[in-house]
Each structure stands twice: as C-alpha cells, then as structure tokens.
C-alpha cells in the first residue's frame, strides 16, 4: 500500500469505519510508514482529548419542560394523584424555587402573580447565574441585601432539613424589587424569596400549576411565595422547616 492511500485511511481506521480486511491491510502498511504512524498517533491523541470531556446531561428543568409539553399534547388531563406520583418518582430531581414578592401585605390568590413567580423560578432554575451572591453563610447573604432592597429578609440555612442555602438574588414581582433566596434539594436548586407583610401567621397553602408546586403563607411578619417542581408534600416540608428556623432564630 503506498503512502497516499495509507494516509487517506488513517481517519477511517481511527473511526472504526474500515472493514476487517482493510484494517488488517492498513496495519501491515503502517509498519513501513513512519509518517502515517505519526499521523495515527496524533489523531488518536486528539480523539482522546475530546472523548475525555465530561458529558453534560440534559438539565432536569429541560426534562420537566419537555415532559410538561408531552403531557399537554397527549391531551391527558393532569390527574392530581398521577401527578403526585410522578413528582414523587422524580425524587432525584428536585428543584424548588420560592418566590416571595412585595405585594403590599395581601395574600395573593393563586393565579394572581403566579406567572411572575413561576418566571422567577425559571430564572433561578434555568440559569447558570442563579444567584447574585453565592454563599451558604447567612452572614454573607443577609448583608448583601442591605442597600439593595428596603427590608431585611430573614436569611436562614436549612441544611439540617435537607435544604442547604446557596445564595440570594433580587427579582421584580408586582413592580417591586424583592429578595429571592436560593436553596438546594439534593443536586438541585431551590430558590426562596420573601417580603414583609402586616398580617398574622397563616399555614402554607400548597397548590399545583403547570406541573409546579406553589406555596403561599405568612410567617413572622413576612409573606412567602414558593414555586418548585417538588411534590406538594416536599413543598409543605420546606415551608414548615423555614417557619421552624425563623422561630428558633428569634
């Protein structure tokens, strides 16, 4: 085999595209051809570098979005129990975002403002820059809000309850700048925001919308709005853990 032929076969050989007999012929020819051996080694090295790159799997948020579309197209009504089972089955892919917006102290009914809150959640879950201040230390996160918003949200790490604090960011809800805290549940993002409220404490009301769980409640003079793709029970657990932590901190 002369060298130009041999050279033309290097890539196909590397890529496993030669027949067994062509491969064998190529290997024999290679022995007499140092240039092609060099070329082969170079190709192998470069291929190895590319194949060592870590694969980036589809983010859970993307998977959830596709699932939601598929369910909608299949025209199956989203049965509540079925939905609940699905989210439980997705225990490995929990994302929680709690949006707490500044809405004048009124309890926001489901549907009112929930688009904005879901958007807040999507910004947190769908972005690499989920937080403006990244820290698990409340003493770093809390001061960050000073001078950026006109109230001081309670910032608490919930690691012992399985929701470690990741950081905080600002968002706009109802035309007002509000604080959003981002937590994690297992490998996934959890975001929480809160704003002051005049009313007394109320129990967390968890509802579902478009495959997301929304929770709203008041506690310790703050109005809380939460959006997540957690199971409703997980969402309730998050709300309870937050309330406990706030009470313990006072």
């Amino acid at each position, binding site marked *: 085999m002369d060298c130009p032929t041999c050279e033309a076969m290097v*890539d*196909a050989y590397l*890529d*496993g*595209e030669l027949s067994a007999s062509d491969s064998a012929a190529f290997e024999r020819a290679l022995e007499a051809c140092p240039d092609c051996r*060099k*070329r082969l*080694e*170079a*190709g192998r*090295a*470069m*291929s190895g*570098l*590319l*194949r*060592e*790159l*870590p*694969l*980036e*799997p*589809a*983010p859970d*948020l*993307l*998977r959830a*979005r*596709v699932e939601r*579309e*598929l369910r909608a*197209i*299949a*025209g*199956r009504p989203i049965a509540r129990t079925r939905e609940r089972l699905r989210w439980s089955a997705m225990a490995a892919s929990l994302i929680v975002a709690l949006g707490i917006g500044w809405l004048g102290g009124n309890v926001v009914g489901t549907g009112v403002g929930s688009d904005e809150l879901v958007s807040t959640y999507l910004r947190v879950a*769908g*972005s*690499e820059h989920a937080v403006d201040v990244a820290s698990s230390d409340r003493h770093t996160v809390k001061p960050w809000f000073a001078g950026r918003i006109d109230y001081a949200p309670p910032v608490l790490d919930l690691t012992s309850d399985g929701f470690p604090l990741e950081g905080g960011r600002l968002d706009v809800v109802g035309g007002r700048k509000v604080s959003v805290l981002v937590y994690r549940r297992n490998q996934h993002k959890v975001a929480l925001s809160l704003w002051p409220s005049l009313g007394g404490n109320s129990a967390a009301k968890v509802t579902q919308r478009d495959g997301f769980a929304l929770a709203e409640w008041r506690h310790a003079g703050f109005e809380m709005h939460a959006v997540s793709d957690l199971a409703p029970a997980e969402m309730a657990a998050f709300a309870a853990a937050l309330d406990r932590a706030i009470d313990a901190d006072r």
Partner: protein
Amino acid sequence: MSETPKPDGATVERFRAVMLPHLDAAYGFARWLTRDPVVAQDVAQEAMLRALRYFHAFRGDEAKPWLLRIVRNTWTDMRAKSGAGDRPLEEIEDRAADGPDPEQSALASDQRRHVVAALAALPAEAREILVLREIEDCSYKHIAAVLDLPIGTVMSRLARAREKLAAELRGRLGRRDHGLPDM
C-alpha cells in the same frame, strides 16, 4: 405541513419510549451548536416538539441521528429568525470550563479547559462534525444523516475539522503537553 396529523396519546407514548432517551444527546449537541447552556435548552425543547410533530414520518430508522438532525435544523431556523449570529467568543471562553470536575486534578482540568475552548473556537462547520463524531460517537453514516451530506463529504470535512482543531490546540496547549506532533 398543516396536514400533519395531531399526535394522539399513543403516539406520545411511543415517542416517549423512542426519542426521550436521546434528550441528553439532543441537549449536548445543542450545547455545542449554540455554545450557550440556556439557549441550548430552548433549542432542545423546540426540537423535541418538532420531532413529535414529525414523528409520524419517522420510519423506525436510527432515532438519535434523526433527532440530532432536527436539533440542528431547529437551531438554524431559530438563528435565522432572531437574526443573531454566534455569541462573541470571549464570553464563551469565560464559561467554557463550566462543568462538574471536582475529582479531577487541576492539571487535567486545565488541559480540558483548553480543549473545550479550542473546540468552541472552531467555526460551526468544523465544530458540529467533531462533536457528532467524538462526543456523540456517531458513525460516518449517522453523521451523513444528521448533516445531510454524502459520506465522502463527511470524511473530507471531518479531516479538515481535525486539522483545524489540531492547529487550535497547538496554539493553546503547546506541543509537548498533549503529544500532538506537527502535521
């Protein structure tokens, strides 16, 4: 196109079984095409929806190349519609090393960052074919299906892409670090 039958529940179930396993590949390919993790999600989602819409035309060939071809067309269309070009490279290189690598040595991750940056810096034509071959592990036949090219063109384009990447890598890594001799 208006004649496209609306997918029913059974079609969606079949689609779920056949195409959904390739969502990772769709996203991974979109990630390299767009060089942007957020846009890549939009492209992959839109591509999945298109794939479902045209699923009746899927003849049970290889699912992955079929889906990746739709990903590529989706990206082409989205780019044409928005009139947007590629993002400026400086922005990409800043983020090119993103990814899970806690247990890797600093040296390995440093080298990998250069490899990622070199690949990201290639023109789209070279980048996509290298990603299909080396990262998505497609055969020539599958690459031909994704890019809608004859096999001969796949081979020559792949060879050119490899030369370009080797040149980029030589510039970034220096020859001794990765054993790539001059070609």
